[in-house]
């Protein structure tokens, strides 16, 4: 044990000595993701994909890019602390992250205070960028995602009635449920039941019983792992046969593994799918990812990949690492050829297509693409 510790210490010292000796001063970018905690599974996917992006593009303005990875512990307070640390101690010029909307809402004000651009590729809740000058996002907004889900339920699934089952402890889930409800009702549908749960819950019998009693035609479940597949399994065990419609956070291997036969038929709205990749960039990314990690890419990773490239693109166009110049360049991002499709940033939010998938034969299968 002590030998390992000593080895790490020596490595660390070597890095300290070697660091300043490099020719060009690196461009420091903070990279804030959940490495530990309940969302660590997602953080792992993102880390792999952004690492891949960095091997593809490791320089900006003729200087090497140094990603300083920081752990949000899947916790909003830790996320805010980490932003503080990245800016104060590590002197980063911009931050990529954090992941969940709740973390973004906590981290955003810190970035605002220090006037450092913060670019999330995952926080889809509209409040994340609202009224902010330095906070941007490269993923679509939940108003759009909720609307896409509602239209799909209403027109493709021909549902008159729907039930909502939402995680009240996550801004993401509450926001999506709200926009789904608004859009579904506006399109002549009816919400017949709403039930709540919280992160970490494992028993959903009572909520599902309440929904079963109302017999909706479709159940909208904008959930996270690991609750989501547990809910669907319990629902099938209780004899609910309605289709579930979910959102981007459900697109992970664990949904299939933990859900098993129960998640068969599940629909979800998301950012990226290998089969539905409409652009050459997307297909190339899928090939590279498979080659590097031996399995298919996931949306969260593709989003991170785009976030990294869009940030570097903005720094290139800004011609400097001055935060104000980066902010101005981010705001003028137009039709960036990202792996998830053409991405523009309008009013701090990304405008880009959404993909609808369905689980068939234990795999996510592409259904359709919805353009904004």
């Amino acid at each position, binding site marked *: 044990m002590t030998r390992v510790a000593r080895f790490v210490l020596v490595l660390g010292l070597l890095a300290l000595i070697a660091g300043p000796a490099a020719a060009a001063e690196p461009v420091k970018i903070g990279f804030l993701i959940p490495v*530990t905690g309940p969302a660590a599974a997602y953080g*792992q996917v993102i880390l792999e994909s952004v690492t891949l992006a960095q091997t593809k593009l490791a320089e900006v303005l003729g200087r090497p890019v140094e990603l300083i990875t920081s752990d949000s512990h899947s916790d909003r307070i830790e996320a805010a602390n980490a932003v503080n640390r990245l800016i104060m101690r590590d002197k980063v010029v911009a931050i990529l992250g954090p992941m969940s909307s709740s973390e973004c809402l906590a981290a955003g004000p810190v970035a605002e205070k220090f006037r450092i651009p913060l670019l999330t590729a995952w926080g889809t809740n509209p409040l994340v960028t609202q009224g902010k000058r330095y906070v941007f996002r490269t993923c679509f907004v939940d108003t759009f995602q909720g609307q896409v889900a509602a239209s799909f339920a209403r027109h493709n699934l021909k549902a008159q009635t729907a039930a909502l089952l939402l995680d009240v402890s996550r801004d993401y889930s509450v926001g999506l449920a709200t926009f789904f409800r608004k859009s579904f009702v506006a399109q002549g549908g009816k919400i017949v039941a709403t039930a709540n749960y919280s992160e970490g819950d494992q028993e959903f019998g009572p909520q599902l*019983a309440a929904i079963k009693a109302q017999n909706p035609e479709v159940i909208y479940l904008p959930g996270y792992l690991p609750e989501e597949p547990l809910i669907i399994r319990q629902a099938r065990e209780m004899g609910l046969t309605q289709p579930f419609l979910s959102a981007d956070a459900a697109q992970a291997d*664990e949904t299939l593994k933990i859900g098993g036969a129960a998640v068969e038929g599940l629909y979800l709205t998301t950012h990226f799918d290998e089969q539905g990749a409409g652009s050459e960039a997307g297909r190339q990314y899928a090939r590279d990812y498979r080659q590097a990690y031996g399995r298919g890419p996931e949306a969260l990773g593709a989003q991170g990949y785009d976030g990294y490239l869009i940030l570097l693109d903005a720094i290139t166009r800004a011609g400097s690492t001055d935060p104000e110049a980066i902010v101005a360049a981010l705001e003028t991002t137009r039709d960036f050829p990202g792996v998830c499709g053409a991405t523009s940033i309008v009013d701090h939010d990304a405008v880009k297509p959404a993909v609808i998938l369905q689980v068939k034969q234990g795999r996510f299968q592409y259904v359709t693409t919805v353009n904004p």
Partner: protein
Amino acid sequence: MDALQQIINGLTLGSLYALIAIGYTMVYGILRLINFAHGDVLMVGCYIAWFGATMFGLPWWAALMGSMALTALLGVLIDQGAYRPLRKAPRISALITAIGVSFLLENLGLVVFGGRPKAFERPEIFNQLLQWGDLRVLSLSLWVPVITALILAGLLFIIHRTRLGMAMRALSRDLVTVQLMGIDTNRVVAATFALGSALAAAGGIFWAMKYPQINPLMGVLPGLKAFVAAVLGGIGNVTGALLGGLLLGMCEILLVAWLPELAGYRDALAFVLLIGILIFRPSGIMGEELPE
């Protein structure tokens, strides 16, 4: 029918809490130590069973037995390494050490097993869907209370009918005096940790069968809830832990069933119950009045 369904749900969840709470209460009864690492020992137990079942292809009962044995060993090692050196230290030091062990196990779990949840296979015998009219019950939901009852009966037998149990009961009265009587207290304490940890593994494995995923932080919430259950029932009392667990499980399920808009406060309910019992009946349902 709906009410019956909810009661079965509550009974199953309560039995799981009870299984875990018994381990808490046994250690507390003897050492007056709240072993906050108990929930994380449970997590390790689940991973051992998972490895046994998926990597070595063991049948579920063999994985369960193997995991209980290895987890018992882990409990004994934790006691030897972390708690025994502090036996004479103030109680608060041992408590803080317990929290440290808990963090150690959680983060070791993250490093060794990875943060992504793993799917836990449910054996066929527990995966039957029983149906009477509108009522649908997973066979596991009925097995869990039965198994809990059997384990509790076995434990009560050990505590009240064997020499080891007698030593345990004596130890819980007065550790110092018992030492003077020529009883090897370290062995009795080790046996307590072994029993408690094996029960945690069993509780955890049935938990993982009911909610079929495991991850390195899975023990945190069941651990805390089981602690509440143990205090509700009167910490230090094994039958009390069972009652506390059932009460807590029932309350949680019924809260969500009857007041669905309060579902988000389900965890809060457990802690409100804890605060309530500490204010109005600190010794719990079955606890004895503690002399000053």
